[in-house]
Structure formats: structure tokens, C-alpha cells
């Protein structure tokens, strides 16, 4: 990979380059992450994991482990009350009881006074296994006679969906050309830099407190309370600073939290548990791997008619969010173009491998790779320019897509044009390949819980005149706190420096679905805007009552008609005095309109939608297959950008993750064993791998988002994959359909192996 230059941020508006004051704690090393937490009397927990991909547990002998000095508890599946749980499907137990289903499956847990003693005790637990036949390939797992993972899911199908919109067969009959291919994507780990940690504390008065950084503390709290049979009000999640998440930590590591809680309840002592980097790879719930068999029907004038898909997603041993991710992977990308008909079959299949979950764009990035590659094949077959075929078919504002998404704002065509112009689409360098790709992503998904579509927030005027915002949304590095501060400051008309955002304690903040589905700015931000607006009204009302004349709240202070200035602390104190202790609180309830969302999933699934087009310029060494990505242009329609500095950071980071997924990341397996469970072997991009990145924002107001804004954090990764794949094919003359696209695969394709141009 080449180096490229140090970018100077483009189009940065210094008025909207705010950062949370927490940045100073982070840059000086003072920010407290989970691993930094200590409590008096704290014990350390360790987990004994299955060494077999599939086996029956015949006997567990804990005598030696229990007798070791310093050991305070040893738990096995038969020594605790077990309740099946899951996020979508209840297919897991806190500790394996009769059967282990993958290498890493939790078999026993230990708490001891030191980490070393806990690790030693875990080693001393003797487990007798009877190995069972295992299955690692989803296609094999679907065959008759394949080893079965879960009795409740015969045929190893965890979840499936068959969907047809429009008349797909007819569309294929009307087509002038049909292109088809099979694309494969390995499981991808979010690879947040901070390994998952939790500190569980249990006492009769407070109940259970989990100190852990997750993207959705409220959902973790609900599941943990349900599994442990605790009253919901007796479970609290408090977040230390979070060292990255990228969708991989929406639920954190539920198993770790449940086991730490069980040990804390058993011992009455705080329990600290931390996954090693190896464990992160072995049990860390990566994005599902997928095989996508796609066919596309296109008319000779370049009109895209229909798409047929047969998709198999590799669930691993348990499900996490994989059904939801499989759904997004199989259909979100269909709303990029004006498809007339769609037929989709998607099956989520159990295998004896690491259980999967999600990462950043919920599988939409995998679909982008496949669909955008296929579209270029269609364009090539028709002699169409890849840019032109996209401009001809891409969705526009006002469209209702094939799945019923209502596009209230959409600058996708402008993104395509801007990306193409900036990359030099019509002014190409000799020996370089060019690729372009388009994407849509939900901005503020409302379908995680049909009874809970929006968000709530509180804005409280403090006695010192500052404002505290309470929200259940989460900042894990992406800059949500800064964005929320800017939104509240704008709604209140006070300086951002007077506002503090509080999100990390489930006891203090309203319940939230959490940081997923690009909800933060659109949904969480709207709730904060509404809370701040209501607080503003209350401030004006209280001030007017104080001076008994009309007032205006402008430029951060309240003035009466006669010219008196009433300071915010005085207003806060007035209300506090009148009520003997209460403070003025604005409540924000943002409840998006009910979607016409039918049983087949047809309908508007999000508050609004973000769009992007990325263009890539690459070079391929025809002798060795070596790929040099020179430049990525990332053009985004995320509505009005609230915080330019943070938005640029999202684009640079998301494009880099897209590059990693395109060219070198992915799980490797030897049988059921993860063959690259370290950062040495699972390589993510370093500073030397990242090409020049040019972010472009096509700013238009969105009618739903706060101050015209839409989400950005997930979509930044999506179109990178199609753009790089298409650019490589453009110059190499061969197409690699199996991610990651490595020099080796390009070399083999150039040599005539698996060559599909």
C-alpha cells in the first residue's frame, strides 16, 4: 500500500468544530476506561472455554480448582440457575451445560483474588468431553445428515426470509441482459482498540451495578435483568469511557457481563473481567460472513429492472443480532437504485464457529461489495459507463423505494457527480483503475422495537446557570457528546461551554435503544433539541413571572421589556426556592411518526436516510497482483453537517475501515479454529496503508433531522468496498469476488484461476 499525503481537512467550518471537554482527559491519559477501574476487595474472573468445536460435556471436576489458594468461586453450568437468552433468538445459556458448540464456548468461570490465581484455577478445572461431529461450512450445514447444532433449529437454519416485491420473473423475462455472480465475505471483527472489560458489583441495597462501556447500556441492562431474574430497577449500567465500538459493542459481550454478575452475586465481591485480545477474536461476535448469489436483470438502455438473491449467512454457534444483520445485508442495498422487482432468499445457518453479530453498517457494506460489483459487470456487458448507469438508476428525493422507504431528502446523484469529478473520472491517469459505488443507509432506524421508535432526553438548568443534558444515547469516540452539545446550545441559544452531556448511567438517563442504526444525531439529537426547547420556554416563563413583565431570551441572557437583565442562575434559584429544591427541567420526547410497515417488512423503516458515493483510484501490478489504493473520494449526503471536525473524522476513519475490509481483513479458520486471533495475524490498516482520502459533504436540509442533519457514522464505510473492487477490476481486467481482495487473489485471477471478468 502506498503512503499518500497528510491531509489538511477540507471544507472545515471553524464555527462547527466543537469537541467535548472530555477530549482533554483522553489526550492527557486521565480518561478512565474499564480496564482502569479498581474497587476495594475486587476479585478477578476468568473463563474456561471449550477447546472443541462440538462436544458433549461428560463430567466437570472443579475440586482442584476450588481448593487453590485465593479462589473464591467456581461456577459451572450445573451450579447456577440457567435461563436461555439471546438478542433475537434465545439460543444461548450463561454457561454451557451439556454441549459445547464452538472453540471458545464458555464452560466454567472462576473468581480469585488475583488474575494469575484465577487463570491458574481455570486451568485446573478438569472437563471430560465426548467429541461430536462438527460442521464449519454453512453450505455443508444445510445438507441432509449434517451435524445438528440446536435441537430447536432442525436443518441448522437459525432464521430465514423469503421475499418478493414486484414481479421478478417477469422482469427477468423483459431484460435484455442478465448478469450473475457469487460473492463471499468473511466474518469481520470491529477491532475496537480497547478490549471489553466489565466490573460487576452486587449488594442487597443497590442491586447489581455493571461498570462497562457499551453502545446500548439500557438494552444490556434489560437482558441481564431478565437472564438473572432480577428486578429491572435493581440493575444499573454505568459506563466508563469507551475505547471504540463500531457496532461491535452494541450489546458489548453479554456473556461476560452475565458471568461477571453471577460471580459477583455468588461471592458478594466486585468482579473484574476482561477479554484478552485473543478472546476478542475467539468470542467477540464479529460481523456475519456471507455468500451472496446474485442475478440482475437490465435493459439495453441501462435501466435496472430486478435483482434476485440467494444469500447464506454464517451464524456461527449462537445468534446475537445475526438475524437482523442478515435482513439488512439482504435488502438495504436494494434501495440505492430504482429496482422494479426484487426476489430474495436469505438463510442464516448455524455452524460450529465463533458466534457472530454486527459491525458498523449492519452488513450493508458486504451487500455494497456484491451489488456494486455486479452492476459494473452489467455496465461492462452493455458498454455503459459505470457512472452513467448509476446516475440513470439511482434513487432521488421523493422516491419510494422497492422496499417502501420514503426518501424525504436525497442527494445521491449529486454525490455521484461530485465523487466522479473529484477523482478525475473523465480525466484519468495512465495505468490507474477507477471505480465508483453508491450507498443508502437508515438514518435513525425505528424498527428495533415496534413499541419504541424514538428517544427521550432531559435538559436541566443547574443552580449555577449551566445546563445538564441527560440522554441514553452513547458517545464511544464518534463525537455524539459534541454533536449533542451543539444541538442543545443552538436550541437554548447559550454558549456550548455552558452545557454538559450525561449519558453513561442508566439510573440518571432516559431509556434508550442505544447507538445503532445511525440513531444518535437524528433521533437522539431531536430528543435533545426538544428538551432544550422546552427548557427554554420554562426559563422564559419563570423569568417573566419574576419581573412580572414580558421577557426575551436572546444571546444567552434573559431581558425584560423594561430592560432588566435576569441571569440564568437567578432564574434557576427562583424555581428552586419556589419548589423547595426542584430545578427547571425540559423534557424532550421525539416519537417519529408511525411507519406503514407491513408484515413483509415493506414500509418506512427509519426517520430518514443518508446517502453516499465513493470513488477510488488504484493501481495493480499485473505481474504480482499487488494493489495500490491511491485515493478515495467520499461524497456524502448527511444533510446539514452539525460538527465538521467530527464529521471529517468519521469519514477518514470509516473509509479506512472500508479499505481494511476490502483489501486485508477477515477471519481465517482452520476447521473451527480461528487461525488469525491476534492483531499480528488479523491485520487492520496502519498509517502506512491509508491512501489519500477526500471527504466531500453535499449539504442539503433534511426535513426530519435536527437542524437538517442526518446520520454519518455507519454509511462512511459502505461504498468504499464497491469503489475499490470496481477500481481493481477496471485496471486488472479481472474481478475478485471473494473478500478481502488480496494481491494473491488478483494474481491468481490474472493467471486464469477463478477468473471472472
Amino acid at each position, binding site marked *: 500500500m502506498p503512503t499518500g499525503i497528510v491531509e489538511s481537512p477540507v471544507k472545515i467550518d471553524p464555527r462547527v468544530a466543537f469537541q467535548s471537554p472530555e477530549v482533554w482527559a483522553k*489526550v*492527557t491519559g486521565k480518561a478512565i476506561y474499564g480496564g482502569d477501574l479498581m474497587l476495594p476487595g475486587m476479585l478477578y474472573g476468568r473463563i474456561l472455554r471449550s477447546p472443541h468445536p462440538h462436544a458433549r460435556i461428560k463430567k466437570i471436576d472443579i475440586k482442584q480448582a476450588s481448593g487453590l489458594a485465593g479462589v473464591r468461586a467456581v461456577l459451572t453450568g450445573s451450579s447456577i440457575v440457567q435461563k436461555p437468552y439471546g438478542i433475537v433468538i434465545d439460543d444461548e445459556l450463561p454457561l454451557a451445560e451439556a454441549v459445547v458448540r464452538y472453540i471458545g464456548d464458555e464452560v466454567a468461570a472462576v473468581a480469585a483474588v488475583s488474575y494469575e490465581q484465577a487463570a491458574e484455577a481455570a486451568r485446573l478445572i478438569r472437563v471430560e468431553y465426548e467429541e461430536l461431529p462438527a460442521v464449519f461450512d454453512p453450505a455443508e450445514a444445510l445438507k441432509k445428515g449434517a451435524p445438528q447444532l440446536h435441537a430447536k433449529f432442525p436443518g441448522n437454519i437459525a432464521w430465514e426470509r423469503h421475499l418478493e416485491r414486484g414481479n421478478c420473473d417477469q422482469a427477468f423475462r423483459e431484460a435484455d441482459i442478465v448478469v450473475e455472480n457469487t460473492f463471499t465475505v468473511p466474518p469481520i471483527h470491529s477491532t475496537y*482498540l480497547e478490549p471489553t472489560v466489565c466490573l460487576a458489583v452486587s449488594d442487597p441495597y443497590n442491586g447489581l451495578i455493571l461498570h462497562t462501556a457499551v453502545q446500548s447500556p439500557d438494552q444490556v441492562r434489560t437482558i441481564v435483568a431478565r437472564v438473572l431474574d432480577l428486578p429491572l430497577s435493581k440493575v444499573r449500567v454505568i459506563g466508563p469511557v469507551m*475505547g471504540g465500538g463500531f457496532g461491535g459493542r452494541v450489546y458489548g459481550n453479554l456473556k461476560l457481563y452475565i458471568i461477571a454478575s453471577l460471580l459477583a452475586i455468588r461471592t458478594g465481591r466486585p468482579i473484574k473481567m476482561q477479554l484478552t485480545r485473543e478472546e476478542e477474536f475467539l468470542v467477540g461476535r464479529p460481523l456475519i460472513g456471507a455468500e451472496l448469489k446474485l442475478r440482475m436483470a437490465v435493459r439495453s438502455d441501462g435501466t435496472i429492472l430486478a435483482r434476485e438473491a440467494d444469500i447464506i449467512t454464517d451464524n456461527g454457534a449462537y445468534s446475537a443480532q445475526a438475524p437482523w444483520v442478515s435482513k439488512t445485508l439482504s435488502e438495504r442495498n436494494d434501495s440505492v437504485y430504482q429496482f422494479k422487482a426484487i426476489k430474495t432468499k436469505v438463510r442464516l445457518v448455524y455452524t460450529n464457529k465463533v458466534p457472530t453479530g454486527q459491525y458498523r453498517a449492519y452488513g450493508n457494506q458486504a451487500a455494497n461489495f456484491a451489488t456494486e460489483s455486479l452492476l459494473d459487470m452489467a455496465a461492462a456487458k452493455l458498454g455503459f459507463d459505470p457512472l452513467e448507469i448509476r446516475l440513470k438508476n439511482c434513487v432521488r428525493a421523493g422516491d419510494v423505494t422497492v422496499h417502501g422507504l420514503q426518501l424525504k431528502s436525497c442527494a445521491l446523484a449529486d454525490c455521484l457527480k461530485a465523487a466522479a469529478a473529484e477523482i478525475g473520472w473523465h480525466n484519468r491517469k495512465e495505468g490507474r483503475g477507477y471505480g465508483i459505488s453508491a450507498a443508502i443507509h437508515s438514518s435513525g432506524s425505528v424498527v428495533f422495537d415496534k413499541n419504541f421508535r424514538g428517544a427521550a432526553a432531559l435538559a436541566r438548568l443547574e443552580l449555577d446557570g449551566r445546563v445538564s443534558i441527560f440522554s441514553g444515547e452513547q458517545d464511544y*469516540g464518534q463525537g455524539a457528546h459534541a454533536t449533542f452539545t451543539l444541538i442543545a446550545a443552538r436550541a437554548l441559544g447559550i454558549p456550548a461551554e455552558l452545557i454538559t452531556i450525561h449519558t453513561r448511567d442508566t439510573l440518571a438517563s432516559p431509556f434508550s435503544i442505544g447507538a445503532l442504526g445511525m440513531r444518535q444525531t437524528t433521533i437522539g439529537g431531536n430528543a435533545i433539541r426538544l428538551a432544550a426547547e422546552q427548557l427554554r420556554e420554562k426559563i422564559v416563563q419563570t423569568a417573566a413571572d419574576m419581573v412580572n413583565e414580558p421577557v426575551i431570551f436572546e444571546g444567552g441572557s434573559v431581558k425584560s421589556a423594561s430592560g432588566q437583565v435576569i441571569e440564568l442562575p437567578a432564574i434557576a434559584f427562583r424555581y428552586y426556592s419556589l419548589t423547595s429544591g426542584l430545578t427547571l427541567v425540559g423534557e424532550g420526547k421525539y416519537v417519529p411518526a408511525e411507519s406503514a410497515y407491513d408484515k413483509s417488512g415493506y414500509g418506512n423503516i427509519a426517520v430518514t436516510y443518508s446517502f453516499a458515493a465513493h470513488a477510488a483510484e488504484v493501481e495493480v501490478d499485473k505481474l504480482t497482483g499487488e494493489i495500490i489504493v491511491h485515493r478515495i473520494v467520499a461524497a456524502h449526503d448527511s444533510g446539514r453537517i452539525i460538527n465538521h471536525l467530527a464529521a471529517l*473524522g468519521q469519514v477518514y*476513519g470509516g473509509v*479506512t475501515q472500508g479499505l481494511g475490509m476490502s483489501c486485508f481483513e477477515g477471519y481465517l479458520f482452520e476447521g473451527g479454529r480461528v487461525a488469525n486471533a491476534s492483531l499480528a495475524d488479523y491485520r487492520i490498516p*496502519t498509517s502506512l496503508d*491509508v491512501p489519500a482520502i477526500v471527504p466531500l459533504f453535499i449539504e442539503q436540509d433534511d426535513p426530519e433531522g435536527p437542524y437538517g442533519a442526518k446520520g454519518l457514522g455507519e454509511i462512511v464505510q459502505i461504498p468504499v468496498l464497491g469503489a475499490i473492487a470496481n477500481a481493481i477490476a477496471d485496471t486488472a481486467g479481472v474481478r475478485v469476488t471473494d473478500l478481502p481482495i488480496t494481491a494473491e487473489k488478483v494474481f491468481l485471477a490474472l493467471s486464469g484461476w477463478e477468473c471472472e471478468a
Partner: protein
Amino acid sequence: MEKELIKFMLNGEPVEVYNDPASSLLHLLREKFSLTGTKEGCGEGECGACTVLLDDLAVNSCLIPAGKVNGRSVETIEALSKDGGVDPIQEAFVEKGAVQCGFCTPGMVMSARALLKQNPDPDPEEIKMAISGNLCRCTGYKQIEAAILLAAGKINSK
């Protein structure tokens, strides 16, 4: 696991500690001196989150046996804001938006510090090389590189 007396300079002050000489400098710093600004991202020398300066050179503290620092000088992220101030590198990181989740940041800042001590006027390529052992998953490195370039300018103009 025999403990030994280890004497070294830590953030400009002489310190002494009885410790297992084979355990890592990272754990020594975090557990014995409560210097938790140095982070553990992998414990295998792959991520650079634990970068500290050992006699002014950037090292992965997870790979340095505690006994090896005897008689030498160790500097951690905490040294940079010792008197409540901040270093120009830290200022530049904030100014350029180089900090997202922040977990790589202390190690990144220390690698930048080692670079600027040896090469006060690095070019972009030298900056990329200097932080190539520090993984960051959030930023794509662009704003970090811009920050280090800015910091060099700030330091040189002093």
C-alpha cells in the same frame, strides 16, 4: 517470580520498587504506580497503545520486562501534563480532532514525542513511519498526522 529491587527514573523522578523483573513494564506502570494513562490493547506488542519512552525511544511497554528498566529513564503520558499544563503535541491533537475514542491516543502522543525529540522537523512520510506501530481504529490517522505536523510547528516556533 522472585522479586527484585528495580530503580529507575520515572517521569523525571527517581523511583524504587520490588517487582517480578520478568513481568511487563506496562503492568508495573499501571499496577504499582497507578499510571493508567498507558493502555493495554493487546499485550503482544502489536497495537502500540502501551507506548512509553525508554531513554527517549518509543517502546511497547508490554514487551519490556520490568527488570530491564533498571538504571534507565521511563517517561509516560502523565509526564506531559505534570504541572496541570499540556504539551504542544496534546494541544495539536485536540486542535486537529485527532482524538476519537482516545484509547490509542496516549501511545500515539508518546510516539509523536519520541519522533519530535529525534527529528524536530519531520516530513509527512516520517510522521506516518513514526506512528506505523500505533494502531488506531477510529481516525484513519489523517487528523493524527496533521496534529503531529502542527505540533512540530508549534514546538519549533517557540
